């Protein structure tokens, strides 16, 4: 039987190690032990990355905003995330009187669980992953929707009207953005010919960002909406809804929600790195030659690049309004994703087994389509023909003699 774990080098090694220790008839135990160890490593790896991401985001955002950011706890403030978690742990865990006990308890747990589940299928390097699921791509777009349910549970269960509004926004928005997000991946799947993330990475002789610029754009935008990052951070819009669905959460429950939020950022960046910039592969040297950096490090570099990109977007853009966000999903992103899929499908039919040169031709066609579409759509969606600042004019008023 081919199990989804067979291609996992770490797992095979550990399984071999435990199998030697245990009697023949206890192979399941070795299997279990090896699984637990790998899961432990992956979960903690993701958590550590998330902790690092919160630190990095605060430092980088600080730089954007001409201030320093956390720099007191440990060298360069590196221990700040741990201090934060410790503080949250010792805080009082409040539950509002109007809150629904079950949903209020479930929401943070479900959110974290959903995010960590996705980590199971992300290949962090060659043979470094938990499971090579043959429906990996579906898994990474499907499982985070559980987090949406959790948000709604949390918002509804808090018994707070701000939270309820935030939850309602979350559901409306996330459902809308699921659609373009999934459709934008169709082109990638057509090119890779497989839904396994490992196969997707290995299929990238050219990084898919070169072949799928439009798909990348749609996925990036939809993903930042999915993660409820600026400019789509409607559901916890601080200036409007105080904190949206997690208004009432405190102590470690709040900590878990924050973990889920930043964890999702890390996971989505990892997915972007895997799907669009060829994961652990060196973008400059073909995999057939000697590598001068381990694949895991390449992966990490690409991951950090996307984290920085998201921080940059957050530092720059204001928030959109709820109806504008929805209109953007349905009027711009969805058609763009469909166009991308159609063009890619035609190209794949034309060159089922493309040569390296033909790949570049495909890339050129895709870029042309992408630029044409983006220009057309921005024209179509633009409302301000004349220069917007023209509405205010300087008027010279004669100062009447005093």
């Amino acid at each position, binding site marked *: 039987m081919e199990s989804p774990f067979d291609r996992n080098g770490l797992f095979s090694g550990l399984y071999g190690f435990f199998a030697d220790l245990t009697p023949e008839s206890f192979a399941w135990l070795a299997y279990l032990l090896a699984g637990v160890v790998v899961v432990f490593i992956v979960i903690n790896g993701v958590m550590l990355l998330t902790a690092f991401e919160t630190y990095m985001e605060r430092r980088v955002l600080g730089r*954007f*905003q*001409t201030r320093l950011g956390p720099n007191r706890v440990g060298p360069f403030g590196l221990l700040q995330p741990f201090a934060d978690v410790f503080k949250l742990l010792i805080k009082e865990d409040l539950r509002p009187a109007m809150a629904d006990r079950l949903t209020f308890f479930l929401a943070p747990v479900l959110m974290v669980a959903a995010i960590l589940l996705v980590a199971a299928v992300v290949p962090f390097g060659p043979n470094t992953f938990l499971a090579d699921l043959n429906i990996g791509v579906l898994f990474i777009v499907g499982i985070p929707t559980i987090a949406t349910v959790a948000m709604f549970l949390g918002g509804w269960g808090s018994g707070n009207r701000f939270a309820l509004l935030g939850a309602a926004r979350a559901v409306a928005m996330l459902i809308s953005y699921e659609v373009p997000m999934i459709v934008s991946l169709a082109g990638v799947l057509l090119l890779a010919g497989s839904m396994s993330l490992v196969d997707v990475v290995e299929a990238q002789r050219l990084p898919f960002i070169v072949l799928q610029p439009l798909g990348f754009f749609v996925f990036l935008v939809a993903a930042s909406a999915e993660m409820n990052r600026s400019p789509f951070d409607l559901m916890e819009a601080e200036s409007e809804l105080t904190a949206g669905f997690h208004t009432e959460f405190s102590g470690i429950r709040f900590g878990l929600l924050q973990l889920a939020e930043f964890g999702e950022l890390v996971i989505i960046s990892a997915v972007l790195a895997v799907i669009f910039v060829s994961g652990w592969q060196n973008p400059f040297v073909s995999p057939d030659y000697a590598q001068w950096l381990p694949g895991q490090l390449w992966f990490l570099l690409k991951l950090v690049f996307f984290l920085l990109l998201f921080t940059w977007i957050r530092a*720059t853009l*204001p928030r959109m*309004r709820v109806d504008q966000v929805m209109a953007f999903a349905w009027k711009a992103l969805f058609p763009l994703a469909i166009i991308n899929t159609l063009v890619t499908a035609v190209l794949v039919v034309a060159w089922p087994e493309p040569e390296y040169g033909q790949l570049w031709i495909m890339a050129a066609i895709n870029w042309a389509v992408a630029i044409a579409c983006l220009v057309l759509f921005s024209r179509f969606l633009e409302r301000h023909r004349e220069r*917007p*600042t023209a509405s205010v004019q300087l008027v010279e008023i004669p100062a009447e003699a005093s």
Partner: protein
Amino acid sequence: MVNLPSEQITINLGPQHPSTHGVFRLRVTLDGEVITDVEPIFGYLHRGTEKLAEERTYTQIVTLTDRLDYTSSMINNQAYVLAVEKLAGVTVPPRGQYLRVLTAELQRIASHLMGVGFFLQDLGASGTPLMYCFRERERILDLFEMLCGARVTVSYMRPGGVFQEPPPEFWPAVRHLLDTTPDAIAELERLISENEIVLARTKGVGVLTKEKAIDSAVSGPNLRASGVAWDLRKADPYDVYADMDFAVPVGSNGDSYDRFLVRVMEVHQSIRIAEQCYRDMPGGPVRSELPFFFRPPPGDAYAHVEASKGELGFYLVSDGGIAPYRCKIRSPSFINLTVLAEMLIGWKVADLMVIFGSLDVNMGEVDR
């Protein structure tokens, strides 16, 4: 489109809320995201300034005025001392007048930067524009610290002039500020003022018509954004504004974007005025001496200035004593709130903060 009725919910935005700019409460009734009814409730910061003024001497009241609109203390000082001078017929030496105009314009820059910064913050811009604005404001507050030792509650002006001669290091610092601030503001403008999301969020949102604005006695940048070219520095010049060469930015749509842009452009005009003050600063005393127990003759006087939020007026009634018999403060933020409820109904919750932020209301001044 079918209009589906849904259960309306009432929420209290404030008095503890990240974007009500102080202790202000809006009782909002929502149908989904759409606002169907608004009731502004305030007074949480009411300190009885007008009553306190009746028990203080004319000089002591200056400190009370600092605490009205705490983002533009200098201009509050100026409005008050002008009223006292009008009441008592005191003349101010030219250097004092120039210093007043210089500091008032610097304060206007600081206040507008804060208004613009928080407006963009309410749009959800994660603090970056706000920090840009605060960086410049900080430099202006440093100048005030040189003048009088205080940064926010300055109490720099006195009936008859200003508190004291600026220290020698003040002038190079002003020069440096005037040289560098325009670039910093331009940087902010490049970042944000033609950003597509800002345009989508503010263009056409919260329109205040010209007629409505005048009828409701809206003043300041909000009035000018609605297309009324009315600036008390031009219409009723006080101190040395009549000698200053500057233009008044006037909007045409009366929407949130125009209110935002009018403020940004006024910053440039304020720099222009400050530049002229720096250039033409006359010598001589900064204050005409008044007796310690200063007793204006019985009577009343109303003086108004173009404060950063609008027309700030002081109506003083004297009974010949050392304290005013009545000191009424015509606060622009308070009267600008008259139009708030009407502007908000029909918009979404997200627009509420944009519209409220674009009015640039200061609760210290509303509640007094």
